[in-house]
């Protein structure tokens, strides 16, 4: 079924919760039946014991009469009691040693075998309102003169009590099972609805709606925790997808122009040039342009690599990185008559990607040299600050107006509208990406005069 509407019955019956509820119910029922059986058995034992007590008390009373008034008196009392018990709850029979009936409300001695201790159990037909059979438990006594006495009591009432108790227990059990099933059904339906709600959300996301999120019930239970984790995961995925989309859009948008230039250059050469030397010249220019294109492409890829995470980080000495960068760029600066200064505190450590960090630093130094006029200075500093470690590149060039500082961190931004200086406009964007990757903050400040770009790394924990 499609988890859309309410949970349908068949799938509900298959649900884990419901099956769990059913097995609990089964275990509960078995123990309840055992318990009720025990209650029922002990009740009937108690009732039977009570009946026998009554019979014995009756017999004690009669034996006193016999002792005081002899057989005649006993017969009188038995006859009287038998007559007065109109409902025949108690049965009496007094017979002579020869077996002749003397008194009592039984017509003859029962044929049933005696049980232990002189107890006997038999059925009688009751007369009176509505004749019916009833079971009687009785005890027989043989008097010293050979007369025999039988005193018994009908089990009719006891049976009624017993069956009333059993009925009550049975209903109770039935109700328990019913409540168990209904409760299990309701609980599992409730849980299933939450599972289906999650499943629906997931399907919406699968269908392309990346903004869909799971709703929490607010109780903070395990479902809420699951929903929360899921939502966090989706946030992260959405961010990643968004960043991939941005890169793709930028690549598509910004590589189109140079590709088009490349294409038209070849086009024009094919149409008009016939001189092999001129064609060769065009080919060489085209190759140089293709190389530029590749460099731009690689810079974009490096940016997206920097944005993809902190894989491959190692401890780095920022002073060493700065020294290498200065050493690498020093001849270039000298050629432009720019002084390079290195002021690095040794012995510091940051965790990072060696090559990307160096690329970022190189981009900053490269920019600084590019925009600093002859006679100026480019300074690279590494220092411990209150917040952590700062790597800064400062120049004495024209600087960047405060209003444009945010903008230059974007991709393909070049303040030089004529684009006369070489570069692809990705330098600072890459630095920004590397800074984000290293949890460092990138700040563009005023060097008075010039630009001071600083990367601040949080102090290692």
């Amino acid at each position: 079924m499609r988890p859309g509407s309410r949970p349908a019955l068949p799938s509900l019956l298959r649900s884990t919760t419901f099956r769990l509820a059913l097995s609990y119910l089964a275990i509960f029922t078995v123990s309840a039946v055992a318990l009720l059986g025990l209650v029922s058995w002990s009740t009937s034992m108690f009732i039977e014991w009570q009946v026998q007590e009554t019979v014995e008390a009756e017999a004690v009373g009669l034996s006193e009469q016999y002792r005081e008034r002899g057989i005649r008196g006993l017969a009188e009392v038995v006859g009287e009691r038998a007559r007065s018990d109109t409902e025949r709850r108690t049965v009496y029979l007094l017979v002579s040693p020869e077996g002749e009936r003397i008194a009592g409300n039984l017509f003859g001695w029962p044929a049933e075998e005696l049980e232990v201790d002189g107890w006997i159990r038999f059925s009688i037909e009751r007369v009176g309102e509505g004749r019916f059979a009833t079971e009687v438990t009785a005890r027989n006594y043989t008097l010293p003169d050979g007369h025999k006495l039988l005193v018994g009591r009908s089990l009719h009432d006891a049976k009624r009590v017993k069956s009333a108790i059993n009925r009550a227990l049975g209903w109770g059990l039935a109700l328990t099972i019913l409540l168990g099933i209904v409760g299990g059904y309701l609980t599992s339906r409730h849980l299933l609805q939450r599972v289906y709600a999650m499943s629906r959300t997931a399907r919406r996301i699968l269908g392309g709606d990346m903004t869909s999120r799971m709703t929490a019930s607010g109780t903070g239970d395990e479902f809420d925790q699951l929903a929360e984790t899921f939502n966090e995961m989706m946030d992260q995925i959405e961010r990643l997808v968004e960043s991939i989309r941005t890169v793709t859009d930028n690549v598509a948008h910004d590589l189109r122009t140079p590709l088009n230039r490349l294409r038209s250059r070849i086009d024009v050469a094919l149409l008009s040039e016939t001189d092999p030397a001129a064609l060769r010249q065009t080919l060489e220019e085209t190759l140089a342009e293709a190389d530029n294109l590749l460099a731009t492409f690689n810079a974009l890829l490096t940016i997206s690599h920097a944005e993809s995470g902190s894989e491959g980080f190692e401890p780095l000495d920022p002073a060493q990185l700065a020294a290498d960068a200065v050493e690498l760029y020093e001849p270039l600066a000298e050629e432009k008559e720019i002084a390079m200064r290195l002021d690095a505190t040794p012995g510091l450590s940051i965790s990072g990607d060696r090559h990307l960090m160096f690329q970022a630093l190189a981009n900053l130094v490269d920019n600084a040299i590019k925009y600093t006029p002859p006679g100026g200075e480019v300074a690279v500093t590494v220092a411990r600050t209150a917040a952590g470690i700062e790597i800064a590149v400062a120049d004495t060039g024209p600087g960047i107006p405060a209003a444009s500082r945010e903008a230059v961190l974007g991709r393909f931004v070049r303040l030089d509208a004529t684009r006369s200086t070489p570069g692809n406009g990705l330098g600072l964007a890459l630095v920004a990406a590397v800074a984000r990757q290293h949890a460092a903050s990138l700040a563009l400040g005023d060097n008075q005069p010039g630009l001071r770009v600083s990367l601040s790394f949080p102090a290692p924990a």
Partner: protein
Amino acid sequence: MRILLIEDDQEAAAYMAKGLKEAGHTVDHAANGTDGLFLATSERYDVMVVDRMLPGLDGLSIIQSIRAGGNATPVLVLSALGKVDDRVKGLKAGGDDYMVKPYAFAELSARIEALGRRAGGGQAETRLKVEDLEMDLLARTVQRAGKAIDLQPREFRLLEYLMRHAGQVVTRTMLLENVWEYHFDPQTNLIDVHISRLRQKVDKDFDPPLIQTVRGSGYSLRAAR
């Protein structure tokens, strides 16, 4: 040199093979991993160029297999994956050099040359000599025509790399990776500036000039012909 090329992109492979043949090499081409491994284990090559992503058997598995078989032929790994981590994986699997696509043919050719020569060269040299240029690796001194040349540490390493690859083309990227040991893309002609400094010291007062610029590729240390 005899070169095995394992690359599934037919067009790129044909272009590469053509260029390498024009440079005087013999090239065998395998278009999938299984054929590649078969050729790599059944024939002897001077250098193998292996693409990382191949149908059948991937490039790193091929390298691991041939290395496990005791085959030490230098391998250049080609890949569209350029992260530092991927590079490390490629070299760990037994690759000797790693190149990220897209690349310039000149770069590929120079690296293949470097790998092919390296296999033959002895490892424990203490002196390097090209024409009248001499380098003492233990004393860390350089002489040309008997005259001492004073070099900065980095200039020494730059010259050492050029001398070790004397006669071969060495690209700017190779110099950055091997002399400065950073994989990065300088936006300016940095290496050219360093080379011109080195030239000042090594070539200016001597004849013939030894550091040659190879147009479109890089540099080469040899006597000008």
